[in-house]
């Protein structure tokens, strides 16, 4: 992707990674149910790779825990993501990666909403519409070139 192309954002700010979630005794207690919560959703998406830099979305502050909302009982989850620059052309790809990650990782009952943090991107409306359109998302994933980039973003980070 970046072989001969000029980097969209050559010098991003870099943020610190959060620590791992702390385990509690109730986590190991089989009699206690653990609802799906904000931290769990955040942990799913924070290690997604940025398509342009060898960094995770969390390290670039594209995703933050405060911008995740989830209601396990109502089976809804909403994620806002913040592109690093207002004209980032990777925004659609990033949103698609987040959406795919959640589709693969959450129970079918969940309704998943992924959109750009309001006011942070020039093409906010257009990107949000694409991400909300179930058929557009399905069509995108049948494009093998697009799927390849998404899968690279979702694969475990290399050394």
């Amino acid at each position, binding site marked *: 992707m970046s072989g001969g192309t000029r980097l969209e954002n050559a010098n991003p700010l*870099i943020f610190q990674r959060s620590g791992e979630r702390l385990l509690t005794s109730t986590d190991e207690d089989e009699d206690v*149910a653990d609802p*799906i919560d904000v931290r*769990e959703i955040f942990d799913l998406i924070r290690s997604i790779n940025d398509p342009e830099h060898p960094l995770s979305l969390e390290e670039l502050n594209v995703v933050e825990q405060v911008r995740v909302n989830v209601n396990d009982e109502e089976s809804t989850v909403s994620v806002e993501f913040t592109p690093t620059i207002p004209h980032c052309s990777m925004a659609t790809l990033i949103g698609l990666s987040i959406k795919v990650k959640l589709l693969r990782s959450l129970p079918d009952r969940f309704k998943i909403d992924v959109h750009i943090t309001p006011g942070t991107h020039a093409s906010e409306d257009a990107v949000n519409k694409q991400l909300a359109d179930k058929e557009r998302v399905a069509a995108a994933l049948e494009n093998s070139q697009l799927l390849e980039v998404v899968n690279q973003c979702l*694969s475990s980070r290399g050394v």
Partner: protein
Amino acid sequence: MAADNNVLLGLVEEFVSGQVDSKAADTSTGVKNGQFTVLQLVEALGVSLTSSQPQTRGRGVQLLSQVLQECYSGLSEREVEVLIAFYENRLKDHYVITPHVLRGLKALAKCSVLPPGSAVSILKSIFQDVHVQQQSLMVTERSCVYNILISLMESREEELKGLGADFIFGFVQSVDGERDPRNLLLAFQVAKNIIYRGYDLGKFVEELFEVTSCYFPIDFSPPPNDPHGITQEELILSLRAVLTGTPRFAEFLLPLIIEKMDSDVQSAKVDSMHTLAACGQTYSHKELAEFLPGLWSSIRREVFQTASERVESAGLSALSSLVSCLSRSVLNSDSEDSLQVFLNLVLKSDCQHHLCEPDLKLVWPSAKLLQAAAGASYRASLIGTQAVIPALLDQYNNRTQCAQRRTLLEVLQGFVQPTPLSRPADGVSCISTHTHEEESVLVAFQQSLCTVVFSALSETSAGLQVTATRVLTALSQQPGLLSQTDVENAVDHLTRLILEEEEAQVSLAVVECSGSLAHLHPHAFVSRMIPQLKEKILSGRVHTVMEKTLSGSLYECSGAVRRRCVAALASVSSQPSVVQESSPVLLQVLTSAHTGCCGFSVEEVIAVCISLQRIAVHARDNEAIGQFFHDIIIPRLLGLTLQAALQSKDSGHISPLTDEAVLSAIVPVISTACAALKPESASRMAAQAVSLFLDGDTSFLPENAFPSQIQPLQSQADSRGPSQLVCLLMACVCSLPRSVEIPDMDRLLVQLEDLSCTSPHLFSYTFASKCIAGLVNKRPAGAALNAVLDRVLKRVSLELEETSSTHRTQAFTLLIWVAKALLLRYHPLSTALTDKLFSLLSDSALGSLVADGFCVLMNDSPDVLNRDCHADVRIMYRQRFFTENSSKLVQGFNSAEQAKKSCYLKALSHIVNNLPREVQLTELPALLPLLLEALSCVDQGVQLSTLSCLQPVLLESPAALNTQLEALFTRLLALTTSPAMKVRMASLRCVHALSRLPEHMVMPFRARVLKALAAPLDDKKRLVRKEAVAARGEWFLLGSPGG
């Protein structure tokens, strides 16, 4: 002779004209056993070698070369000389013949009788007549050339050096353009030999550099089937050794490194930095001086960008290497001080500025760069700290936010922490005065640093306090830096924090810091900290009793303080003078708990025992501590527990010291201390312990107020009676060095045997069995040992055969522990006992217990029969056990009735789970069908054990899996819905591991797995969901583009 000649001619004819390759071996055999000589072979080949057909000449040379490859070691000097002349001449022949000539020369190059001058002659011919990279030589022929070079360099180094620069030029021409990884490794080896063995490079320095550096940085991926086993790492390291081997390459290599550090490819950056770090080992300041600004600029940029931890750490190590190199260089009288100039560059550029920035942005990259530079040598740390520490201290005093102060303190810690290179060199002490010898680079800042640390310790921010303890620990490790007053102030601060601080992270950091300081300054802790901890632990009880009526939470609060004090006492007790003050406090807690006057709980007593054990560990390093345990602590522990056991019959108060959990906590205190005793003390300990338990001799115990006629080893109805103290006997006599003789061994074993076989109490009979096992394991082989074993095993067999016996469980317990004792030492009787255990797997009452007994056999026991207790443990006993018994287990499983099969599976799981990984991988494929059946067993314990066995093996994808995948997936996916949470998690991990098998094997299962894994995504437990997410994510990537 005429007959032999005809045979030889026949062989030659068949090989050359008949194209029968096997005749070469026949000819070699003939030469080896003296039937022919090599020269006779040459004569026989005469017609072939002079044929007008190049193919025929090639065939003749080929036969000769193949024979030489087999027979070169037997050649005479005369023969070698003639052959070399022949081969050199053949290099001028048709190119078809060249490969065979090279193979012959390769063999001749290995001859130990190579005539003088031959090496030079061979190489001149090769360099002149063979165009290694131009004439389409195949990989193997090029390999021959390199191997010839390597052989001659090994055996005729001086002659080759006599060639001077011509040798270098010839080599450069030979290797230029080489692409094959195998040959590159050989070529790099030759180049390395040239550089490291002092060959004259002449005017070809740049050419030699060019011909090797064109491969830098290495970009190589082994082909999928990896036939040659060459790795990228191998190539990288080989090339690096060449490039960094001589300072004469510096003017070419350093610009190349700077260029590659600017590359977009991360691995190129990392390789460049590692190569630069290697340069620091061989270069001096003269080579580096010209390039330092460029190198610094590149390193700084990479560390500031923090794109990757690999790049960052490589950059920092390169910087340290540069500084270390500059510090090491001996300056000429006319040259400037390179180290000073470079450090000025480092300090005066952005780094120092960023440390003082208002918002502390980029403070961490700057700090790391400065620390890497300052940590590289003593002189660098002097220069670096003198510039940086005042700035940091100013910043600290000017900042008011705790977060910023914490950051500054963490940066400060990086400079305060000693590194090996930043200490004064040993040589300095020969010259310096005593005062100077102790001087630390931080002496000038000692007062300011202490002020900062103490004020930080007084802050309310947990992060700041934790960092302050780390800085304090680092300061204390600087020899002579802290004054007596500073140490006392530090101890007072630490004491206050232990008594007052509730935050767990701070408490832990404070205790650790106290441990470090107490090791270096024991007296300050004895005089200042321990009295206060003692008062809080002991005196506070009275108030707590009263406060308990007022507030329940206050009671808990006081308990927490006491626990911290108890933990701190253990942490600071690494020197005898401290132990002598701290352990009496702990013993007094036990005494008070026993008398019941202060209401210590069982949990608190256990915490005290844990602290005593942590102190006992230091007895391994310090004989005086061991002696103190021997003289004071162990007798007191035995006395207290004996009093408690005897008293429980009479009074209404039940002492915590009769609690099994407490006794179990005392065991490691005694065993750790006994294991570290010196022979004389150990013998005395053994005698005292045995006479106490056998004869009721309490004379060595303090407070001699025991009734007569004590019989601790007698079985009693009262579970809290003296018999449960057998665990302490075990701790004493089973931990001593093997050389210590246990008195009255036979009488002791008889008593233990009775207790083990007849006691109704699990705790007592189990520890009695362990004690017997510990003694049996160490006893020298011979008639005495055999007699004991015969008697014990006869009794065990009798009890086990009596199915109505109420003591079968006891008999089994003794059997399992004795079996373990013998297994560990490779005693021949071990086999019979193992067979007995296998037969018991089918026992309706004991089967499950026996299966779990294999866990005892295979696992390390913390309190007996381990190496710390000086047990006789042979290496690889688990592998040997598995090898000898796995087939029996499989047979037993196959012949057992259905209801009993789970016991065999459980036993097998215990055995396999404790094998080293390599053995598992080798042996497990044969057991795979059995394990698959185990997954269908209804026992969740068996399922979990089997899954634990399977998962590491699945990661290595043994070929045996191919035929079992269908069954494996069916069972694993079914277990993802198991009622047991741990089984669900383990099965999901196995499914995850299967995603890494070769794609063609698992693609058929992809759709099925993805569908099945959708359900556990909605598991009610988060830990299960997490495993499902990881597994499903990997299976989605399988076979998908970019995956």
